[in-house]
């Protein structure tokens, strides 16, 4: 254990000492001019790298600066950051639109929104258009209470198909709000019993 630490420290210190000697040579060779600041900047980066380099092994990170630098591809970097940006925009867009729909439905109707799924596709100007929208609603508290609750009814072999109701009023509301064709809107309304099988 002691020998490992000794080796680690001696390696590290040797690297740093050689680097500092090289840097002082570079410093002397560079004439005093406006360009010196930029050279110093890169030299500073290299010093930081040398200082943290031994800790890479400690954290089991396998990375070589040389490989990263020589493989660096500006176009790829640019594309990746663009794609990431698009993803984030899409996420925020979907989130906002879901929140708006939820607010609208809960204000105007007596249903509670359970889940919203939106399928989008980017168009030419990179603005998202809604391809399809799936909304599942639950009946709100008041309706639930006013209804006569029916326990699970089993007919025949016990397998009951699940039907979801739809409400044209909700469809119309959404169509007006989103300004898309009605065929793209799929609303299904469940009530509490659905978790066990459909009770109609």
């Amino acid at each position, binding site marked *: 254990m002691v020998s490992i630490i000794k080796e680690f420290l001696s*390696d590290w210190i040797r690297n740093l000492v*050689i680097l500092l000697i090289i840097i002082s040579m570079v410093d002397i060779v560079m*004439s005093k*001019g406006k360009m010196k600041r930029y050279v110093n*900047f890169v030299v500073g980066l290299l010093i930081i790298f040398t200082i943290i380099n031994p800790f890479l092994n400690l954290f089991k990170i396998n990375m070589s*600066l040389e490989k990263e630098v020589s493989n*660096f591809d500006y176009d790829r970097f640019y594309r990746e950051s663009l794609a990431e940006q698009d993803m984030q925009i899409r996420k925020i867009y979907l989130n906002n639109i879901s929140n708006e729909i939820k607010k609208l439905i809960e204000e105007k109707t007596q249903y509670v929104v359970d889940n919203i799924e939106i399928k989008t596709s980017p168009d030419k100007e990179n603005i998202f258009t809604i391809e399809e929208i799936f909304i599942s609603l639950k009946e709100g508290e008041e309706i639930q209470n006013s209804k006569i609750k029916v326990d699970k009814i089993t007919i025949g072999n016990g397998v009951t198909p699940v039907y979801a109701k739809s409400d044209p009023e909700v469809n119309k509301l959404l169509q007006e709000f989103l300004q898309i064709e009605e065929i793209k809107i799929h609303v299904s309304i469940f009530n509490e019993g659905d978790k066990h099988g459909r009770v109609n």
Partner: protein
Amino acid sequence: MEIFQIIGLGIVATIIIVILKQTRPEFAVLVSIVTGVIIFTLILPHLAYIIDTISSLSSRVNVDFSYFGTLIKIIGMAYIVEFASQVSRDAGQESIAMKIELGGKVLIMVLAIPILLALLDLIIKILP
């Protein structure tokens, strides 16, 4: 001894320029540019020797120090840019000198960006 060549060249050029400035100032600029180029070519082999020493020193370190290639490139670029901008400045073209420096700065930054990004990536990976 090369130092005497450089000194001699410099002093002779200075005297010529001082004399020429009173009679034909347009030739004074030319003499100063040519002197600069000659001195630069005289020191080039020695500069190469220094760079060789630096790279042999860097190969002694057992970490991958081949990114010294980038450092040496940057130093070389800084040298050339400085030299060219001084030539322009000698000829009284301050604005051209500024533009040469601008080009040098931008290209040096382009070389430095991969190192910067790799380092940033590394630091982010190390931090928990």
